[in-house]
């Protein structure tokens, strides 16, 4: 039940004024203090004044109540919940409250790549494909596409090849994508037309937009249907000379003619006035072809099955040329009116307020239609109520308010008060939120359960590892003999560094020790005995067990360092661990790491530096041992295995292979595997590659982090998915329950105000009495 404001405030005021009854007690105490000469100023006058005050207060109780009530009413804005950070008018509305810590740098779909940016763009832009919300392992389904792309292969002469052609024979892959008709853009002034169907705001001058402060200040808006040309336009934007698409380099290696296209645009841009509209429609791109209004083709070099995953990302979402032209008009950029700031899409939501310093608001796109909640999922989804909305039109939530919360403490506390609908769990609040059961399972604490909070966990498609620089003579080796010895050394260290212990001590068990580079949920990851790393682990009584330190010591001796002493030089083995600048809190992690190496009598020297210098060391190959991590772009083992592919070496090729690992057999298998379709044959090759890596141990495999998230009872249809970000359209909120809980949890506690005022009065009275006494004393003295 919601409490009536009057009842709440007056009952608390009543309570606070009852505190005045402590006055007689104070009387007695002060008399006692006086008798013992503990206080000098409080004299009989003060006591009589206090008594008088007490009586007066009793008589004037109602007047005082009202006077105290005033600031309270100002505080509350006449509401019975005072700490609500949102306007009262939003109560009971179908709004999702979320937070973001870091302001997004880019909202242009050709540039946004970080998770904090995709969080917004994924709700606004609609690429051709998306991940199924419920199915696991992750499954691709159409989004704006009417069906899955039709992929065909061609040889050098453009002759069609059979669908199962081997990668070596394929010169070109063609992706034919057909989109649904009847998809419309969000209402936007870029589409507004006059009665002659001419675009209304496409010949603006600086003067025209002088008074415009935000996009909503434009009086008219319009829309138009999504067509294939918009997808083509966006692919061309990857090569735009004024935009920095993070995937341009990668895509230029695949999409036919994209690199040359960038040069053409760069030349054209030089001939145009600065920042003027560069009309990409005038310049054809060889690798992209329009078939009709709803069909287009992308032609890429060779066979690259992973390309289909890129079609789920905003890089391949449609962008209307009208938006690009609209924002390129004079004076727009000075007012921060850019596509990077105000996205224009066809998705379920549109950005209506963009103040990334404080708040970002997404509201339902009135033109969005044609998507429905999935009617099939995993067996447990029915039991978890995740299929209750099957077949219903999306989205369910009207508005999403993202508030900027830079610090974790206020975010956590506001979540507990019901002002955020979900929260991650920081290490500070872990014990408050999660308890580990006797079986080692993580469960929500009773306190959280009483609030109706649920816990969701998921192993992220990420890996955190400790890498060895294979170019280093000690841990990598130069001659074949040195390399063999270094391999034994790395294997010994792999056994000694106990990541299970690391996760328990430093991560509250939020992660699983990695057995290789591939995390769970990705093809090539195996559960149980088949999935263990035989170099560091053994299977014992149905459980995985880390090998003993004696086995590590034996390997170390074989490497030429018996007891941690170099057989060649007679000196203790010293290794160098490069890390980014650490806070005082992380010192214990470094100490723990030293202890792990100490098990083998190896001295570990930690070289801490800032992130820029650290990156510089890695690029130049000056680090010996380092820590690094990788979040997957897409759920395919290729996206992890390429991190150790020879031609990706950091030092030679500025690639992503930070360990500079180069194994001819592994490289050959990688080239074979990356072009293959999913299937048992591919898994066999992946297994072989992982076995090579385990044997060579260029990384300590580290761990795959486990994400813990908390959800309030009113937050429904939540199924964690670390790869897809466009899932808000599936979520549902029960605003009535949220309002009820917020009132229950946030009743203002007014008595401290009363106590504060009473204390102030108690302090002022002796001061006043002392002042009078002092004045009288001075006058008498002067006489």
């Amino acid at each position, binding site marked *: 039940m919601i409490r009536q404001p009057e009842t709440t405030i007056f009952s608390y005021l009543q309570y606070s004024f009852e505190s005045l009854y402590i006055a007689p007690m104070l009387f007695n105490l002060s008399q006692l203090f006086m008798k013992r000469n503990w206080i000098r100023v409080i004299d009989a006058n003060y006591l009589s004044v206090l008594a008088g005050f007490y009586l007066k207060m009793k008589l004037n109780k109602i007047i005082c109540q009202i006077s105290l009530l005033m600031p309270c009413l100002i505080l509350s804005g006449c509401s019975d919940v*005072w700490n609500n950070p949102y306007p009262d008018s939003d109560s009971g509305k179908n709004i999702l409250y979320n937070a973001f810590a870091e302001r997004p740098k*880019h909202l242009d779909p050709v540039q946004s790549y970080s998770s904090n940016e995709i969080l917004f763009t994924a709700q606004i832009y609609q690429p051709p494909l998306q991940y199924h919300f419920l199915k696991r392992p992750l499954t691709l389904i159409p989004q704006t596409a009417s069906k899955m792309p039709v992929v065909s292969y061609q040889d050098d002469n453009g002759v069609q090849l059979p669908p199962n052609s081997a990668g070596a024979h394929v010169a070109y892959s063609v992706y034919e994508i057909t989109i649904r008709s009847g998809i419309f853009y969000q209402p936007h002034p870029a589409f507004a037309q006059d009665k002659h169907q001419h675009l209304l705001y496409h010949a603006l001058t600086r003067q025209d937009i002088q008074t415009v402060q935000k996009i909503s200040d434009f009086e008219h808006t319009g829309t138009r249907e999504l067509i294939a040309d918009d997808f083509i336009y966006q692919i061309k934007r990857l090569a735009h000379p004024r935009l920095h698409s993070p*995937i341009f380099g990668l895509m230029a290696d695949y999409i036919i003619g994209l690199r040359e296209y960038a040069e053409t645009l760069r030349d054209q841009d030089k001939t145009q006035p600065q920042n003027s509209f560069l009309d990409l429609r005038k310049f054809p791109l060889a690798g992209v072809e329009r078939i009709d209004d709803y069909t287009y083709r992308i032609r890429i070099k060779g066979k690259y099955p992973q390309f289909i995953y890129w079609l789920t990302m905003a890089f391949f979402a449609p962008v209307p040329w009208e938006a690009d032209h609209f924002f390129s008009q004079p004076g727009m950029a000075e007012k921060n009116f850019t596509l990077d700031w105000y996205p224009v899409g066809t998705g379920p939501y549109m950005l209506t307020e963009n103040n990334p310093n404080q708040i970002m608001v997404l509201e339902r796109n009135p033109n969005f239609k044609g998507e429905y909640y999935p009617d099939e999922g995993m067996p447990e989804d029915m039991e978890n109520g995740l299929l209750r909305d099957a077949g219903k039109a999306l989205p369910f939530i009207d508005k999403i308010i993202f508030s900027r919360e830079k610090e974790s403490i206020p975010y956590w506390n506001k979540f507990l008060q019901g002002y955020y609908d979900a929260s991650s769990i920081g290490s500070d609040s872990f014990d408050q939120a999660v308890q580990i059961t006797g079986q080692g399972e993580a469960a929500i604490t009773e306190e959280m359960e009483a609030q109706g909070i649920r816990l969701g966990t998921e192993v992220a498609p990420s890996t955190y590892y400790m890498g060895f620089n294979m170019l280093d003579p000690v841990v990598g080796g130069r001659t074949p003999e040195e390399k063999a010895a270094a391999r034994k050394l790395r294997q010994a260290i792999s056994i000694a560094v106990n990541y299970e212990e690391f996760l328990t001590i430093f991560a509250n068990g939020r992660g699983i020790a990695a057995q290789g580079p591939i995390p769970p949920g990705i093809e090539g990851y195996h559960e149980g005995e088949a999935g263990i790393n035989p170099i560091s682990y053994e299977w014992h009584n149905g459980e995985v067990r880390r090998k003993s330190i004696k086995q590590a010591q034996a390997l170390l001796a074989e490497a030429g360092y018996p007891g941690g002493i170099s057989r060649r030089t007679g000196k203790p083995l010293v290794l160098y661990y490069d890390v980014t600048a650490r806070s005082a809190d992380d010192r214990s992690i470094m100490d723990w790491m030293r202890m792990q190496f100490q098990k083998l009598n190896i001295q570990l020297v930690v070289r801490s530096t800032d992130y820029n210098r650290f990156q510089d060391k890695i690029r130049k190959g000056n680090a010996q041992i380092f820590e690094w991590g990788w979040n997957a772009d897409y759920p395919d083992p290729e996206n992890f295995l390429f991190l150790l592919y020879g031609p990706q070496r950091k030092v030679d090729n500025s690639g992503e292979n930070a360990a500079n690992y180069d194994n001819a057999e592994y490289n050959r298998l990688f080239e074979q595997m990356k072009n293959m379709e999913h299937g048992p044959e591919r898994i066999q090759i992946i297994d072989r590659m992982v076995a090579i890596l385990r044997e060579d141990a260029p990384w300590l495999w580290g761990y795959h982090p486990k994400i813990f998230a908390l959800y309030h009872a009113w937050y429904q249809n939540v199924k964690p998915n670390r790869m897809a970000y466009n899932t808000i359209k599936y979520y549902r909120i029960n605003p009535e329950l949220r309002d009820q809980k917020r009132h229950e949890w946030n009743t203002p506690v007014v008595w401290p105000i009363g106590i504060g005022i009473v204390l102030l009065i108690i302090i002022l009275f002796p001061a006043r009495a002392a002042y009078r006494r*002092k004045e009288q004393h001075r006058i008498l003295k002067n006489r």
Partner: protein
Amino acid sequence: MLNYIIRRLFYAIPILVGVNLITFALFFVVNTPDDMARMHLGTKHVTEEAIWKWKQEHGYNKPLLYNNVAYGIEKFTDTIFFEKSVSMFAFDFGRADDGRDIAHEIQSRMWPSLAIALPVFLLGLLAYITFALIMVFFRATYIDFWGIVLCVMLMSISSLFYIIAGQFLIGKLWHLVPISGYASGLDATRFLLLPIIVGIISSAGANTRWYRTLFLEEINKEYVRTARAKGLSENIVLFRHVLKNAMIPILTGAVVVIPLLFLGGLITESFFGIPGLGSYTIDAIQSQDFAVVRAMVFLGSLLYITGLVLTDISYTFADPRVRLE
């Protein structure tokens, strides 16, 4: 006085150039233009070509301070330092590295900063001077003694503790105000209440002690004895005579910070979610946005110099004997 002000403004130019040079040197010792490009382009799939393109577009593809390959004066002018600094003196702060207009950001963010800093400054000044005068009035009594003990205690606690404790007690336990956040217009009041209270309390110890020391120095002077001899009450002696004569040191400390109030508080704004200039500066440092860091440091130095000039001018009002020539 006008000549004095003009002279002081001219003195400001070399100071600003110096500050700009030091900021530039310190920033680029830690971050090279390549580092900045990498920070902005992200950690994945960053090619050398993309880095070069970013540097070229943002004007970081030139030498830092001295251009060997240029001729004549261009050896100095065709550099990052010159090109990035000259426009600042025309108050053209340019664009942040993410493309957004810095002047526009400063204009919109200075008001939330001011909304906290101004009440903290004014109410704090009033509270600290009042407490200091009370302690002086009760000097050598238990009030003075325990007052100093309290001040030392307040000084000994980190400002972060006040913020966390304030949020915990007032926001979380008592539910009296929102823990963090901000709103425009009058609705901002309820968000500002807690940071203002925390701001005043966190500085109370040091400031009250400082003002107490100032007043104690004055209290034994001859004019005070004369005033007392005339039979004036102690409060008149304190509030009319001592306070007035202690104005010069008070103004020295107070007026100089007035222009700086626009710049906001770094930690306070982060914890309370206030979208002010303090959090803007912190964000810029974290994202290695030199354009914003440089603009904020320049603005800070300019406002500090303005504060010093204003302090000098305020002396003439507080003490008629002071002449600015």
